[in-house]
Each structure stands twice: as structure tokens, then as C-alpha cells.
């Protein structure tokens, strides 16, 4: 369900994730055993590694506005990043389009599992200005549906533990997780970590990197609440303070690979 949070400046932020009756997924689970903690830390601390914050700067931060499209936005923006990491051009994808496919045309929020299943099977349409703040299926055209087929996550899988999530992010994949946003979720400490905020899960966000702070795995979240949230739209999440309780109700997801697009100017092997 949609849940609004009002910050100290009076700005309102919307969530929009539904709670499943039981924890389930229609997406394959990660088939490989996670790396051990030392291997993950070795990857994270590699001196030559590019941080996602440096790769995906302010231009990448989106604001879902007044509708409960967090899950659509998280999935679409995760797919955008995954495409660019695979060498493709940056195409802005429509979180609203994805949301409209999984909400029964009502602004009531959506299920994490439905978003990932849709983007891997049917794809996400490129964003157009007419999509802004739309959420009904009829708000989108046949052209949008056709274009969406060009932008799919072809290798999506579920993760269910801290180390599985950390392994995938350390390898360079991009994911979508559930958090439970409360008023505390608005505050970051001096290391950029979001204040403890636990619950069954009412908000979907993408995570595109992992780092170690004070010996703890911290997942780099890019929220969909614009640049005014947190550290220019971002904040660090930990399993203990943010993800463990939502994970008892939701599987999280990572996108390993994306479809290629012959129309985007990158040649295909002849």
C-alpha cells in the first residue's frame, strides 16, 4: 500500500509496495553459492574499482513524485544501469510504464516479484514526457509496448541472504530490494548510512554497489525521491538495520544481463 512520509521541510515522499500473502517468487534463484566474505571484500576494496556513485551521478536520480511507483522506478532504473554496465547507451526507461503493468491500473502500489518478472519477460518502455505521473495501462500506447520489448533483463535472479546480495553487487550486478520506510529512513549518519528503519517492507529501491563501513557490508541505495533525499538521492543500507525484516516477506533481485538492442547504434556480430 502507499505510505507517505513528510520530512522536516514539509516535503512528502511516497512509497508503494504491496505485502505478499506469503514469501514467494517466480524468478529463478541465484544458482551459485555466494563467495565468502573475504572474496567479496577483496572485490569491493580493489583499488581500481569504480564506485557506482561515481558512474551514476546526479543525472541518474529520479523522483517518483506523487504516485506509488517505487517498484516500477527501482526496476526500470536498475535495468538502465545494467544496460550501461554492459556497454550500451544510456536510455532512460519508464518506471511509470513498468508500474502500470503490475498494478491493475490502480495507484495502490505493486509487488516486488511482479516487477522483476515483467521486466524480464516483457521489458520496459523508454521514458517519454507523457508518461510522467501516469499509472494506468490505458495511459500508455501500443508503441510503448512494442518499444518495451527492446529493453529486457534477460538474466534476473532472486537473492535471499546478505552474502548473496553482496556477492552479486560486488560482481557488478544491479539489484532491487524492499525496505520499510519510516520517518527514521529520512536521516543519514555522518558516514551516509540510513538510520535504522525496519518493518515488513513498504518501499522498493535499487541497490547498485556495496562497500565496507566500520567492518559492515553497506548496500548503496539509489532512492526514487529526487536529489533532496539523503546524500543527493542516495544512502547506505545494512542487512541488520534495513533489509533483514523486509527479506522475511520479499525475495530481492539482481539483474545479471540485459537484452541487446540492434537499433541503439551498437553493431551486432554479422
Amino acid at each position, binding site marked *: 500500500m502507499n505510505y507517505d512520509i513528510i520530512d522536516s521541510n514539509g516535503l512528502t515522499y511516497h512509497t508503494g509496495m504491496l505485502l505478499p500473502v506469503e514469501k514467494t517468487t517466480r524468478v529463478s534463484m541465484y544458482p551459485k553459492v555466494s563467495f565468502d566474505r573475504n572474496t567479496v571484500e577483496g572485490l569491493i576494496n580493489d583499488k581500481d574499482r569504480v564506485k557506482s556513485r561515481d558512474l551514476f551521478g546526479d543525472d541518474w536520480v529520479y523522483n517518483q513524485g506523487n504516485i506509488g511507483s517505487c517498484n516500477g522506478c527501482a526496476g526500470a532504473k536498475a535495468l538502465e544501469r545494467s544496460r550501461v554496465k554492459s556497454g550500451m547507451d544510456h536510455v532512460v526507461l519508464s518506471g511509470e510504464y513498468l508500474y502500470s503493468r503490475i498494478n491493475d491500473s490502480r495507484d495502490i502500489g505493486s509487488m516486488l516479484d511482479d516487477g522483476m518478472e515483467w521486466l524480464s519477460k516483457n521489458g520496459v518502455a523508454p521514458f517519454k514526457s507523457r508518461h510522467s505521473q501516469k499509472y494506468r495501462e490505458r495511459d500508455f500506447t501500443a508503441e510503448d509496448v512494442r518499444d518495451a520489448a527492446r529493453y529486457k533483463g534477460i538474466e534476473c535472479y532472486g537473492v535471499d541472504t546478505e552474502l548473496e546480495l553482496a556477492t552479486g553487487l560486488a560482481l557488478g*550486478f544491479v539489484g532491487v530490494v524492499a525496505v520499510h520506510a519510516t520517518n527514521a529512513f529520512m536521516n543519514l549518519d555522518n558516514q551516509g548510512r540510513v538510520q535504522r528503519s525496519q518493518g515488513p517492507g513498504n518501499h522498493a529501491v535499487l541497490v547498485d554497489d556495496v562497500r565496507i563501513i566500520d567492518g559492515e557490508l553497506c548496500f548503496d541505495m539509489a532512492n526514487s525521491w529526487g536529489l533532496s533525499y539523503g546524500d543527493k538521492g542516495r544512502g547506505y543500507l545494512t542487512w541488520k538495520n534495513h533489509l533483514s525484516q523486509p527479506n522475511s516477506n520479499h525475495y530481492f533481485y539482481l539483474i545479471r544481463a540485459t537484452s541487446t538492442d540492434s537499433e541503439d547504434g551498437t553493431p551486432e*556480430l554479422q
Partner: protein
Amino acid sequence: MKLFSKSFVLMLILVGSIASLGANPPPMVNAGWSPSAPRLVYTEITVKGVENAKPGSLVVLSPDGIEDSRHSWDIRFPIKFDEYQEENGKLFIAMPNESVGVTLFVIPNDNGKQIRKIRYTIEVEGKSEKDDKVKPEPDDKPTTKFNKSDYLVLIEESSERTPDVAKLVNSKFWLTELKSLGFNRPLINDKDSEQGKSFIEAAKLFGLNGKVPFLAIMDKDGSFIDAFEVPKSTDELKGVLGL
């Protein structure tokens, strides 16, 4: 130390030509063409010649299946080696006491077809395993011609991405430096994607058995240029690419 003179090579050619009169043709070696390639339809091109030879012996290589094409030879290694000669389209090599790697370039007369590149290696006959473990110095490693309009492509099984590959694809060199140097951003294709499958079939022509991960180079028109194993470090990759 120089093993042979050019005149010695020519003498070997003459002797070899006489000796080969009436002899059985050398065995045909398939360079790896796969009839199951879904999108790549090629005439089978092979290099005919021995795979092992004693130091000082004459090795004769000849192309097969190159109708309607021109061709040329190139020595990949040893780097400093000139005991060879091209005659009537064949390559005559005075076998040194180390392995010789050659590349056969096949250039179709039809400009619409792509250039083919077949790699072939002759090992030293009777060489011990111990000798095989002696690796060439990094400076002796062959480099691949990599142009700014080309694309570097990783083909991988994404569910089995290794720490070494992860370090490469998350490195400054991969994600930002190549682009800032004026090259195209490197591409990543999963082996199960259509593109991934095409690359795997094409790589078989270059002596790779299709085992992922590997790196390939594709030009701006989508022609396959080269393929090689993923180097252990970005510095090593820069060396392979000649950067």
C-alpha cells in the same frame, strides 16, 4: 643466435620440394570451423601442414579452401624470427628450436565478405613438458590490432562470473578510461544471448573452443576481428590491445 640464413631456408625449400615429389600430402588440419554456426556461413578454410617438427627441418604450410580469395601469411611468434619465406602462396619455415605461431589471412575478392584469419601453431617435436612450461616474456606476447572504432566484447556466463572477470569489468579501464581515450565502451554479452551464441561460434574459428569467458574484438560493421582469453589483469589486457 641466428639459426639459419635466408639461403639455407631456400636450400631447404628446394630439397623439401624434391623430397615431397610423389609423397603423400601432409595431413589436413581443421582450424576449427563449426558447421552448426547459426549466423556465420563460411567456406571451410584450413591450413595444411604438420603440427610438430624437429628443429632445423623444413615445414611447409599451405592454405586450403580459399577459392575466390587472396591470402597472406604472418608470423605471430617467435617475435624475432625471419627464417621463413612465402613462395607460390605456401609458407616455408626452417623450424627453430621453439614453437612457431602463424596467421593465415584470407581476403575474399568479393568486398562484401569479411576477411578471415586462421591461426596455426607448429610445436617442436620431442620437446619435453618442462620446456613447454617456459613461458615467453611479456614483451614477446603478440598484440592484437585494436582500432578506436572497434568494440571490445566480453562473452561470459554471467551466473559464473569470476572474481578476475569482476575486477576487469568494474575497473576504471573498462568503465571509463577506454571511453575517455576515444574508444567505444566495451560490451558484455551473456553466452545464452543471441549475440553471445554468435560470438562463441565465431571464436571457434580462432582456435578458442568456445569456452567462456573470453574477449573478442568486433569492428564497427559487426565483423569479427579476433578472440582471446581474458587476461589476468587490466595491465595485461592493455598489453594485448597494444595500448
